[in-house]
């Protein structure tokens, strides 16, 4: 009898360790191999039939093991002896998971903890932010560890035993009141602290803050600084054109735009007038393509032609033209309204600098005014604990004071190449992942002034000829309608 029990024990220990191996260690080893040694040779590009087969093989092995256990269960039923106790195995795996999991948490904190953007913020409000974070972290981490430990400990401790009956314990008002009240108190504390932190960050804006316009478009950023007159010029999206990407109220530019729009309208009118001829010409070409078999040689061209031809016949072509004309007329009307307002084109925009880099002075308060012209973007500067959406048609802002120069950040992070960036953090299209602008914090006003002087103003002082410095490769230069350009 005793030997029998011993044999069963040994058997179950063997199976336990087998289960432990396959459950915990095997996947972990697989993963550990990847983490510990940076996978230089390990390339998943060789992801081919061999890989797929080995995955299937692994699954097959699990199936076989499962089948073996099923046979074990059958034996159990026949002999009436417990061979495999899955309740015990699961309980043990739970405990191992708990230990391994806590180790994992510790490992993450140790290895990745130093990489986090905490404790070395580059802005004044960043420290308040970080302290708020640490308080929250303290509470939640404590609760996390206690509850998870209890959960897995209970799993182990109260695993099934047929000789035991569970405690018939339906409720306990006192206990329930305690764990309603205690979290409430903790949360009240966090809410109050969060409230003050949030109000401080969003509403306490120093009067002397310098305004910088940060402008987002698919896919890039521009910054606009006030020039020597110290004030940012007006802007409106109706003035946006290839040479005026931000739509700044600059009288000469706008006159050009009006001329351009009028030209386009007359061009579109002409297309509209000759629409019937165009459609006939397309039909001719279309028939020729079909007749000569060119449609098979140049399927792409044929497809384009066919679309055009169909649009022409269905009237979509003329409708598109009419829509474009109407839209451009509306734009002209809107511009005319603005031109009536003398105060709008007050010339303050002339000395504005539109730049492809943001330069800030340490310890000087700033207020960023955000604009976007196509879709929603989000200006995200994790080093400064700053984020705000840039919404077309709705100006937004964020005020902060940088406290650490780029040079200081480099030495603190021990990365000589380190730079601050402003990223886009709201999905905005294909190149969302590469939409950023460099932010440099300099030590003093003098450095900043030198930099600003090197940037060309929007309208060059009278001595020089016109230099459209704002124009860069990021922006579409041609303002023509591409529906018509297909002609």
């Amino acid at each position, binding site marked *: 009898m005793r030997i029998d029990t011993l044999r069963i024990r040994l058997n179950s220990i063997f199976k336990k360790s087998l289960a432990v191996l396959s459950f915990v260690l095997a996947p972990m080893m697989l993963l550990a191999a990847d983490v510990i040694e940076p996978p230089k040779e390990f390339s998943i590009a060789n992801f081919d039939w061999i890989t797929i087969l080995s995955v299937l093989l692994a699954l097959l092995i*699990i199936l076989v093991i499962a089948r073996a256990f099923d046979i074990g269960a059958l034996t159990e039923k026949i002999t009436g002896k417990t061979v495999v106790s899955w309740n015990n195995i699961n309980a043990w795996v739970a405990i191992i998971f708990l230990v391994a999991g806590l180790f994992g948490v510790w490992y993450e904190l140790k290895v990745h903890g130093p990489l986090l953007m905490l404790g070395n913020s580059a802005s004044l409000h960043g420290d308040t932010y970080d302290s708020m974070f640490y308080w929250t972290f303290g509470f939640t981490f404590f609760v996390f560890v206690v509850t998870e430990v209890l959960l897995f400990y209970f799993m182990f401790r109260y695993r099934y035993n047929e000789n035991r009956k569970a405690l018939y314990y339906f409720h306990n008002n006192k206990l329930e009141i305690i764990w309603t009240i205690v979290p409430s108190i903790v949360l009240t504390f966090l809410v109050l602290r969060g409230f003050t932190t949030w109000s401080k960050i969003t509403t306490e804006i120093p009067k002397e803050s310098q305004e910088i316009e940060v402008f987002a478009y698919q896919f890039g950023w521009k910054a606009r600084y006030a020039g020597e007159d110290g004030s940012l010029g007006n802007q409106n999206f109706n003035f946006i054109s290839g040479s005026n990407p931000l*739509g700044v109220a600059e009288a000469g530019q706008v006159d050009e735009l009006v001329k351009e729009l009028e030209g386009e309208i007359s061009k579109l009118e002409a297309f509209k007038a000759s629409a019937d001829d165009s459609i006939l010409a397309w039909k001719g070409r279309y028939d020729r393509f079909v007749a000569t078999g060119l449609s098979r040689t140049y399927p792409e061209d044929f497809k384009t032609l066919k679309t055009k031809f169909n649009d022409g016949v269905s009237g979509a072509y003329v409708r598109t033209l009419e829509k*474009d004309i109407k839209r451009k007329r509306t734009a002209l009307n809107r511009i005319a309204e603005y031109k009536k307002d003398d105060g709008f084109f007050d010339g303050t925009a002339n000395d504005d600098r539109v730049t492809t880099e943001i330069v800030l002075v340490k310890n000087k308060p700033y207020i960023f005014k955000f604009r976007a*012209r196509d879709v929603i973007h989000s200006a995200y500067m994790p080093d400064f604990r700053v984020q705000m959406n840039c919404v077309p048609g709705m100006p937004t802002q964020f005020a902060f004071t940088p406290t650490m120069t780029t040079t200081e950040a480099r030495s603190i992070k021990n990365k000589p190449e380190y730079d601050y960036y402003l990223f886009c953090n709201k*999905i905005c299209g294909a190149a969302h992942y590469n939409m950023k602008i460099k932010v440099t914090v300099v030590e003093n006003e003098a450095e900043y002034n030198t930099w600003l002087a090197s940037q060309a103003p929007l309208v060059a002082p009278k001595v020089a000829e016109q230099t459209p410095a704002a124009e860069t490769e990021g922006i579409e230069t041609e303002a023509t309608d591409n529906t018509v350009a297909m002609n």
Partner: protein
Amino acid sequence: MSTAALHADSHHDHHEHKESFISKYVFSMDHKMISKQFLITGIVMGIIGMTMSLIFRLQLAWPDEQFGFMETLLGKWAVDGKLDPNFYMGLVTIHGTIMVFYVLTAGLSGTFSNLLIPLQVGARDMASPFMNMLSYWFFLASSITLLSSVFIETGPASGGWTVYPPLSALEKAMPGSGLGMTLWLSAIALFIISSLLGGINYISTVLNMRTKGMSMNRMPLTIWAFFFTAILGLLSFPVLLGAALFLIFDRSFGTSFYLSDIYLEGVGALENIGGSPVLYQHLFWFLGHPEVYIILMPALGITSEVISTNARKPIFGYTAMVISLMGISFLSFIVWGHHMFITGMNPFLGSVFMILTLIIAVPSAVKAFNYLTTLWKGNLRFTPAMLFSIGLVSFFISGGLTGIYLGNAALDIQLHDSYFVVAHFHLVMGSAAIFGMLAGIYHWFPKMYGRMMNNTLGYFHFWITFITAYLVFFPMHFMGLAGVPRRYYQFTLLEDFNVWMDVNKLITVSAIVGGAAQLLFIYNFFYSIFKGKKATANPWQANSLEWSTPVERIHGNWPGEIPTVYRGPYEYSRPDREEDFFPQYVPDDSAPEVLHTEEHQVAPEEKSPEEVESSVFFAAIKRVFGLS
């Protein structure tokens, strides 16, 4: 043993008729068949959604590699085996949409509300079987519409699952905003119709069709959860429909609800101005926030049932559980603004939403503590369903706690749209709800198919999934805290993020292992449907009403009269009973109905030393607060 014979014996109200294949399996009006239809469709959608995530995870881990098989699979979207950035966005969007709506709303709530509401409240079928059938077919039409958008030339909708305009409204903003977006909106409109048809049915069935003795306070917590879920859906989905309609108008009819001041591709893109993109976000999140509870609450309900059954112990604090569900449901309608702290909303409004949001943590904490206490001094049977439920509790805690960071407007400045958010909602909403769904499948499989699933495979499935889920989502918290933005196609152009390459690889490898583990489940599921061990009527020795139905799943559920309910659903391990369970439908005049009042609080006869030791924690709490 044919069902026909049972039908002949039965004298329920249903008209006797011979069912054809079409009326039994296709256009079925039987709630159990409809629930299976929802489940199978949900599983298929789940596999598709998961495969999509694996494809974009490969891109994130090995951005410079070329995957030959990807070109075979995706054609022009992966020329030379390198994923196209637009299609990456499309995958992210469709993965999110599928998982949130099609798997975790319809697949979870649709399956289990349909299966369990009539069975657990004691009804022959849903209040309106026909509407119920329509609900499924709208859902299927919606699924097909959504999936078809993956195959069109311009690709699927790719503005993220929240499809914020103007990105989603302007065809020129990205290819996916063309036909793909139109299909997405149509799919969602169909989905909402399906969801509303289902929801009305669930509510009326719960309110009107409970059997004799099934008072509201004797309903299992699953029913309470489905009931509140249906109410949430009924109140919030129409708002999304409104938002979608406005968006359709903006896209196709030249209105400007969400658009203003747009200049795109060299032209001012709009005739009208004056709309607000933020309006869409308000409307969307008015659904969107209740939606996460629409996803989570059924899973919590299932967990309550499974944990209590397998701990052989009454669920701790039944009333508190119901009140928490009620509180969460109510609060979920007034916290949507926490998704919008940094949209430029008035900061004061942000403060209000922050306070309301953090209040939700209280009922959530109560639920977590109650689960723990239910396990305490239980007699835990680790069926796969039980393991998945415990896994859910673990995810609910880990993921829920990070909600305290994100609900705090100040902390959200830094964390918004970073990987921290990805980690948070994948744990608390994604993994937790999926675990609830899997627990439900393992637990009620015998009721669905009359057979048992293989437990051993279930254990492997659970542990691999559980471990890999943590390996995938836990490190993402750290990425987010380091300022890594989400929805980035690759990080190679941003040198500072290169340190996370190893972590990205770890996440992808874990995701692949976890994904492969689901094959075990798929095999187990389909194999067991046909070849599984035959089930008995009540294989888990559970209390609730559905286990009184015969193994052959007959139309009308019970062959004779619907049983009467005599007590609550969680009378496990009553000291006055020999057996450790006491079903709701078993009459016993000698046993008092309720034992669990204060006067009848029954202490265990004698405490073993271990039991005393393990109650130290609770004893300590009591001592600290001076309770006896």
